[in-house]
């Protein structure tokens, strides 16, 4: 017994030690941020000296290949600047590593980051305000100005009067549909919710000996639920007040719409397949709403199936979420590094490069001049599936960027899954989602 209590005591001590240790780290990190800032301010700008900048990203496969090519070309044009690309795995891994690096004061010069992460970095003074550089003498050239970047993407990077990033890989949601199935049944791509529901019902049947389900929802439906609320004419969250606004008739209408389709079998979740690109290219689902970044992926596996995309069907309103990461700059870098990194950030989204990137990946050109330019327009003329994204900028909206919005999304996801997978009713789900989401936001205040 004596030994046991000793063990318990020791355990408690070790837990305490660990807990205290962690606290200390945090204290250090915030001190460090301000310390580094001072260092930066005193650093001299020497543009003629060779500079190496480090760019942490989460681009894999063909996306990474494009990025490597772009960095190589950039270094050719700017002999003094070397860009070191560091692949940090998935977005989750990247986020974790950025957190660890920030605490160790070893942040890279620049990194891909969601606006949501930038909210946190901003709160801890980890990132650089780009506004002075944008408005400075080495800002954007007149033929590719900052204002030329689509408003929805500029807003995503603007925090108060600070600009904390530039857009890079941006995508939107589009409706993927199987042209063969639609044409054989005399249907066209749905433009409203009612048409969507009707088409899903018609196409839920055996086609060519295969049991087809009309509509598919991605497993990450919770992350795009704001889109359904907005389309139903409702609101999602008031960013200024940090208040959840979706517990309304519009919210209920959205959940009921999804729930009804799932219940009557005219829609399915991606489920075990992970993503719907698989079932879609196999012809198991006739249409689904998914990321435009999946275009290249669907194209690869579609074989000789005829397919295309359409703008998102609307209900009361048209609303299209714009997602994807920006590139943000960290404060513990020298002024020379920051100047060099800014050049690279601009380079990645020149009108030519943003179109080239979009062609290679299915992401969107981030500049208005590029979206309306001959190069892109003739490309989407030939590649019909890329047109839908281009039609949605006017209806675009961005994710909530409040502190705690990550926790809020998780809370929403937990409650929504109860409806999607466990048969909870839309009304009780909406109520629970709203309460839990508000709790998550309040906790972060």
């Amino acid at each position, binding site marked *: 017994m004596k*030994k046991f209590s*000793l*063990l318990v005591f*020791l*355990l408690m001590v*070790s*837990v305490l030690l*660990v807990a205290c*240790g*962690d606290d200390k*780290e945090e204290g250090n990190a915030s001190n460090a941020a301000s310390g580094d800032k001072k260092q930066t301010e005193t650093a001299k700008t020497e543009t003629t000296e060779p500079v190496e900048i*480090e760019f942490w990203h989460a681009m*894999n*496969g063909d*996306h*990474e290949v494009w990025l490597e090519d772009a960095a190589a070309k950039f270094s050719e044009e700017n002999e003094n600047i070397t860009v*070191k690309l*560091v*692949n*940090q*795995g*998935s*977005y989750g*891994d990247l986020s*974790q*590593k950025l*957190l*660890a*690096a920030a*605490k*160790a*004061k*070893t942040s890279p010069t620049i990194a891909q980051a969601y606006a949501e992460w930038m909210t946190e970095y901003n709160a801890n003074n980890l990132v650089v305000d780009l506004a002075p550089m944008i408005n400075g003498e080495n800002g954007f050239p007149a033929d590719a100005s900052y204002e030329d970047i689509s408003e929805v993407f500029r807003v995503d990077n603007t925090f108060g009067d600070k600009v904390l990033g530039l857009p890079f890989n941006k995508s939107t949601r589009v409706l993927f549909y199987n042209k063969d199935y639609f044409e054989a049944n005399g249907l066209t791509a749905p433009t409203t919710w009612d048409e969507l529901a009707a088409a899903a019902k018609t196409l839920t049947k055996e086609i060519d000996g295969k049991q087809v389900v009309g509509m598919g929802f991605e497993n990450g439906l919770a992350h795009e639920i704001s889109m359904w609320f907005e389309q139903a004419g409702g609101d999602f969250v008031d960013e200024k007040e940090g208040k959840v606004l979706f517990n309304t008739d519009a919210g209920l209408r959205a959940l009921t719409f999804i729930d009804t389709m799932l219940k009557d079998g005219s829609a399915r979740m991606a489920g075990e*397949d*992970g*993503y719907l*690109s*698989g*079932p879609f*290219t*196999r012809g*198991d689902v006739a249409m689904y709403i*998914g*990321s435009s*970044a*999946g275009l*290249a*992926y*669907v194209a*690869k*596996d579609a*074989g000789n199936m005829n397919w295309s995309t359409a703008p998102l069907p609307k209900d009361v309103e048209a609303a299209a979420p714009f997602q994807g990461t920006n590139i943000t700059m960290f404060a513990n870098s020298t002024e020379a590094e920051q100047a060099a990194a800014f050049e690279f950030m601009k380079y990645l989204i020149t009108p030519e490069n943003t179109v080239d990137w979009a062609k290679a990946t*299915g992401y969107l050109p981030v500049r208005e001049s590029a979206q309306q330019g001959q190069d892109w327009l003739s490309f989407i003329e030939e590649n019909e599936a890329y047109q839908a994204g281009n039609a949605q900028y006017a209806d675009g909206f961005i994710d909530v960027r409040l502190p705690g919005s990550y926790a809020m999304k998780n809370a929403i996801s937990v409650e929504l899954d109860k409806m999607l997978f466990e048969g909870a009713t839309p009304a009780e789900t909406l109520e629970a989602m709203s309460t839990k989401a508000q709790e998550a936001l309040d906790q972060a205040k």
Partner: protein
Amino acid sequence: MKTSPLSKTFIYGLLGIGSILMLLPFVWMISTSLKSGNEVMMMPPIWIPETFRFDNYVEAFKKAPFATYFLNSVIVMVLSTLGEVITTILAAYAFSKLNFWGKDVLFALLVGTMMVPGEVLLVPNFVLLSNLGWIDRYEALIIPWTASIFSIFLLRQFFMKIPKELNYAARVDGCTNFRFLWSIMIPIAKPAIVTIILLKAIGSWNAFLWPLIVTNSKEMRTLPVGLTSFSTEAGTVYELLMAASTMIILPMIILFIFLQKYIIKGIAGAGIKG
């Protein structure tokens, strides 16, 4: 004791089912590695692809510098395993056969650290290594992994079962602690040590998060990190991922085949009388 043919059939039948269940994932992996993208997720599942696409292997290996990753994985695995075996044997001997002040307290403290989940320590450990200047170097990949409380615990329990009388007899013959450890304890504990080596080697070979966190350049990364090349935002290229996995897993299977005699002894040994 003689087993009747009926119960023998039953036992073999059960073992047969067990082994099929164990082999199934491997078969699936190899079969997937030869499929086309379309066939991967096909329902009902296809076990034998229409055409064997050996090209998948070529393509997979073009996606990342796997030769460098392979070399790094081998270096890290060998050195960290070697380091762990040395520290484990010494520590387990001290905790089981030597008497010193605070031995039990120290041991309880060490075992207590096993309660702290690794994720909690990720950031503090990263900060520590960063301050030491080890980030993106072999030191970071190897040195933190050259001691394992779990292994020490495992071997200590094994050592404790070895009767004290052996120690006394050796002492009478003028044997030093080190000699006793080297000539008597280690040979007796061979199955346990091989188990530790094997668990360590597999763990090190498969480790993903830590190598990813502490390295930045492709020259320093290991095989599991290389596998992320096949995951994209819109999904995973399973056929290539499985092709690369098949190649990566091969050394572990070879290691297992050569050492399986010891593994079984090491695990079954726990129940054998001292």
